[in-house]
């Protein structure tokens, strides 16, 4: 494409929008609504995931070992466990540490009673590993592995927490994905309608272009430009709006609802929008391109 035909196509794309103001505005508004909803879901999910991540980090699996298993064996098992992909961090609690922790909690103020156990640790077989996971959904596979290890007596896990978090995470993902998909389909449909109207308005011009010998791409390009511009503007407006809204809302919540602020820690706007802006723009432009291409294929036989 020559540079002047490129500019011609871009100019005609803008003109198409100006000619079909109402349809273009309707498409842009729908696109903006879609990207706005997408942005809201994205922000909610990102913040929710961050919270879940924090909770997940606290979920651990505890491994106890067979009676009389030498500490050197326990430590070498620990090394093997630490290499697993599911494991984010592993903490060793020796029998000594376990007894000391127990004493602190249950013999507070009655240290003389605890002294009765001197030299005879009642938790001699309680050496264990606290294993923290990278992802809670990996817990069951890790537990199966741990149970298969020789020398392991018992594996304690918080299955309910892990499953609930994992399932809830998936549910939120599916629902938001479904809603976004529906909205995006609506956007494609509306852009397609706008381009169809554009094609019918410019029917005569297209016919002349074809007879004069305009290349196919030159007949099609203005409509693709139109779709892409609608997508771009339809994405840019809600993203800017969301950026400022999010900044204000997190400050407002932190100020007015201290209890929420203490429970939740919002992700900073620049972190969220570092991903959301390119994804939103890509979606808008992509949908605009797709909507116009589909329509051109259907209605514009050149």
């Amino acid at each position, binding site marked *: 494409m*020559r540079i*002047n*035909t490129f500019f*011609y196509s871009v100019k005609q794309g803008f003109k198409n929008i100006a000619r079909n103001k109402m349809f273009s505005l309707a498409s842009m508004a729908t696109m903006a609504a879609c990207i706005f909803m997408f942005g809201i879901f994205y922000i909610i999910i990102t913040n929710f995931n961050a919270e879940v991540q924090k909770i997940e980090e606290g979920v651990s699996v505890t491994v106890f070992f067979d009676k009389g298993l030498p500490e050197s064996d326990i430590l070498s098992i620990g090394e093997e466990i630490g290499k697993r992909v599911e494991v984010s961090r592993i903490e060793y609690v020796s029998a000594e540490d376990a007894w000391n922790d127990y004493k602190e909690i249950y013999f507070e103020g009655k240290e003389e009673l605890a002294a009765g156990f001197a030299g005879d640790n009642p938790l001699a077989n309680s050496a264990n590993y606290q294993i923290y996971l990278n992802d809670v959904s990996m817990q069951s596979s890790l537990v199966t592995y741990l149970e298969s290890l020789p020398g392991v007596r018992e594996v304690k896990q918080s299955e309910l927490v892990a499953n609930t978090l994992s399932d809830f995470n998936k549910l939120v993902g599916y629902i938001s994905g479904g809603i976004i998909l529906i909205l995006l389909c609506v956007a494609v449909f509306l852009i397609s309608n706008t381009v169809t109207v554009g094609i019918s308005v410019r029917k*005569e*011009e297209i*016919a*002349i*272009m*074809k*007879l*004069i*010998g*305009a*290349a*196919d791409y*030159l007949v099609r390009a203005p409509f693709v430009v139109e779709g892409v511009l609608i997508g771009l503007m339809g994405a840019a407006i809600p993203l800017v709006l969301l950026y400022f809204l999010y900044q204000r809302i997190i400050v407002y919540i932190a100020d007015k609802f201290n209890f929420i602020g203490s429970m939740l820690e919002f992700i900073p706007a620049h972190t969220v929008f570092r991903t959301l802006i390119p994804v939103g723009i890509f979606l808008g432009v992509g949908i605009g391109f797709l909507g116009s291409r589909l329509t051109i294929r259907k209605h514009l036989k050149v």
Partner: protein
Amino acid sequence: MIKLEHVSKSYSAGIPALNDVSLEIEDGEFVFIVGDSGSGKSTMIKLLLKELDPTDGEITIGGKNLGRIKRKQIPKFRRGIGVVFQDFRLLKDRNVYENVAFAQKVIGEPNSHIRKKVPIMLSMVGLAAKYRSYPKELSGGEQQRVAIARALINEPSILLADEPTGNLDNNNAWEIMKLLEEINAKGTTVIVVTHNLEIVKVMKKRVITVKKGTIVSDSKQGGYDDED
């Protein structure tokens, strides 16, 4: 040279719009194609522009077999043929200059070239002074001149005129025909589809008469059998 060899064209209904038509038109010829409505004249124009493909037979223009031209090559092929219509087909939202320049823009000519060429073409059709006028401000004859300028600006070797005087009064019709004759005199092959028997008889050019999809006469010197 334009060559049609045993060309037939049937639409979906099955009735042939053209039936076994063969003809040759030499470079630089001026040819009238006459016939009643529905006789197949417009189908012939569409076949020459490769808007339609024949059901049977072959069409060759300038040595190129139209049946072998790939879809991608059609625009380039059409640049060698100028077309003028009865209803002018001007873009109403653009002025005279822009309408003529449009034909150059869509084939990607640089603006500097367009700025030089459009005024020359408008002078040739006698509309240099009206370059800023919009189609609605022009007479039918003037609008047809703009259409001719647009058809010729890409320097086609063939000019197809489908009822170019159909919407014009007698004076304007003659002016347009004179213009077409001048264009022909410069070497462009001109093919005019028309109903205007007076023009056909007076101009004494080759006349091909089409009836029910077949050529019933091909007279070299303006002969036209209008008994029907």
